[in-house]
């Protein structure tokens, strides 16, 4: 029952955030230089008079600002976020087609970063003054400092051209024939370089965080108690220590999902990965503003959902946390 109220409360809060994103988009349309109708038409200066007139009517641009907002809100609630004139397709449809690609990239990268980060951080914490621990610290600083698009390009030069192990661009081999297994393997083959690129940045952070978190836990009273009870060090570290030290890493990873998603946007443009990021980039080049704003909106919704899921699973994992905070 407590869980049920929690789910409701988190969902309501999520909806308020969604409302705030709609308000942000509405504000941006109105404070950006130029005519809001042109902004909504998506073809700066290129739209015909009829299209502009129909947009003015559809969005009630002759009405007061609060009325305009209600009209805008109503359209968003119905999932009508305008039409992309370049694709001649509703932007909602365009984006929904691209969500799986972006999610597969960002979730794969996030999982790789979390799992490897936990392993490296745990090993480093076993000898905090040792060379391996030093490597993790230096690696984490270097990982933060490397621009993600540059890491991607370096991996492309190394592993797609110099040693052609992986395909450099796209999501599947165009002329590939074969069953679903071959198709899936081909997809994974294409996924390796973009996912590794994105994972490197976050791996750097999580390994260092895990190291610090393990050192905290291993220095705490309950671990001293376990050792005093005569438990083997292996059990203390890998069973009790890790279980407790992982929680902060998961929290940060959940909170940071918007950054992973943002990283995916950049990585997609480097590898021509046909997800939302590449679509955002193309919409900028074509000045397709309704599409761009809708991508911002959908990205925020995905982050909100991921945050709720992480938050709930975290509460299930850690029985110490109950209720609101």
């Amino acid at each position, binding site marked *: 029952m407590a869980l049920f109220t929690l789910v409701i409360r988190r969902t309501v809060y999520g909806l308020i955030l969604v409302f705030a*994103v709609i308000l942000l988009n509405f504000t*941006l349309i109105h404070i950006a230089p130029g005519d809001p109708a042109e902004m909504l038409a998506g073809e700066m200066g290129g739209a015909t008079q009829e299209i502009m007139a129909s947009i003015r009517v559809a969005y009630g641009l002759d009405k007061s600002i609060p009325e305009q907002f209600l009209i805008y809100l109503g359209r968003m609630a119905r999932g009508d976020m305008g039409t992309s004139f370049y694709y001649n397709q509703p932007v909602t449809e365009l984006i929904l087609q691209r969500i799986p690609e972006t999610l597969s990239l960002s979730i794969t990268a996030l999982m790789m970063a979390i799992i490897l980060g936990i392993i490296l951080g745990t090993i480093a914490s076993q000898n905090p003054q040792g060379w391996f621990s030093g490597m993790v610290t230096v690696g984490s600083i270097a990982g933060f400092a490397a*621009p993600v698009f*540059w890491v991607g390009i*370096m991996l492309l030069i190394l592993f797609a*051209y110099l040693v052609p192990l992986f395909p450099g661009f796209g999501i599947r081999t165009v002329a590939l024939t074969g069953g679903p297994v071959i198709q899936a393997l081909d997809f994974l083959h294409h996924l390796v370089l973009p996912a590794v690129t994105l994972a490197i940045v976050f791996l750097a952070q999580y390994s260092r965080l895990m190291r610090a978190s393990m050192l905290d836990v291993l220095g705490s009273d309950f671990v001293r108690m376990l050792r005093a009870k005569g438990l083997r060090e292996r059990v203390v570290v890998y069973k009790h220590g890790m279980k407790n030290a992982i929680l902060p890493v998961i929290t940060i990873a959940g909170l*940071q999902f918007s950054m992973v998603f943002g990283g995916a946007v950049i990585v997609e443009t480097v590898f021509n990965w046909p997800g939302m990021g590449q679509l955002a980039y193309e919409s900028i080049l074509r000045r397709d*503003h309704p599409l761009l704003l809708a991508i911002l909106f959908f990205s925020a919704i995905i982050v909100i959902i991921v945050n709720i899921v992480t938050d709930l699973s975290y509460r299930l994992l850690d029985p110490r946390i109950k209720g609101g905070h």
Partner: protein
Amino acid sequence: MAMDEKIGIGAVSGWRDAWGMFSGNKGAIAGLVIWLLIISMAILGPLLYSGNPFEIVSTPMTPPGGKLFLGSDYMGRDVLGGIIYGAKVTLLVGLAATVCTVVIGMVIGTLAGYYGKQVDLFLMRVTEFFQVLPPILLAMVLVTLFSPSYITVIVAIGSVNWISTARLTRAAFLKIKELDFVRAARATGATNSRIMWRIILPNAFPPLIVITTLTIGSAILFEAALSFLGLTDPNIMTWGFMIGASRNYIWDSWWAVTFPGAAIFLTVLSISLIGDGLNDAMNLKLRVL
């Protein structure tokens, strides 16, 4: 960048001790040396390289070595010249965006931490709202909707990058405002704004210096990403722009993308090493990611 809010405040026993700790840290000193070299390159740039970085000076894709030390790009533009020229712009934009970030973050964090209650609740909700927007995507939207001028770029970076600063400032204020000397100041009738800006803020400096240092790094990375995507002023040569311009020729002229990227990497690395060293030297135990 994310921050863990467990912080120690006022753990500095004196600036001289802090310098002692800092100078004993090999990484921090290496960072400081690299940073000073890059700064000198930016300041002395016009003496080292007087040409126009957009000028075609050789046959396209001249490999590194020879007269052009780092070769030329697909249009025959000097890569080393671009890096030297771009240092100034990259650093200036990075610093300006940092000022913008720190001002926004500090004001929000100060108000939230000092006033607490409803003000804090509201400002933290605003912060959480910004955390659900992918930062680079929001920056891309702002720069596209307004203009690709550098003023827009600086404000856009400031608007997406202030969250860590705000959270850290708030955490510091929550801790410091309960200390005796603040109570004493309040008892003597000091105004809220005096307590906030003249009494608490200076005592919150150690963690804020660390986060500001790291913010310079992230601001440079944001600028680089926006220039790489071609969203900044196309008439100004920056490191990110150089990589973006040559992105279709990465195999034929690997040097034109590798060296400008290495410049960004080294610059941000040096700042991060300095920030890390300051964190240890002031014994803050900030977990800066």
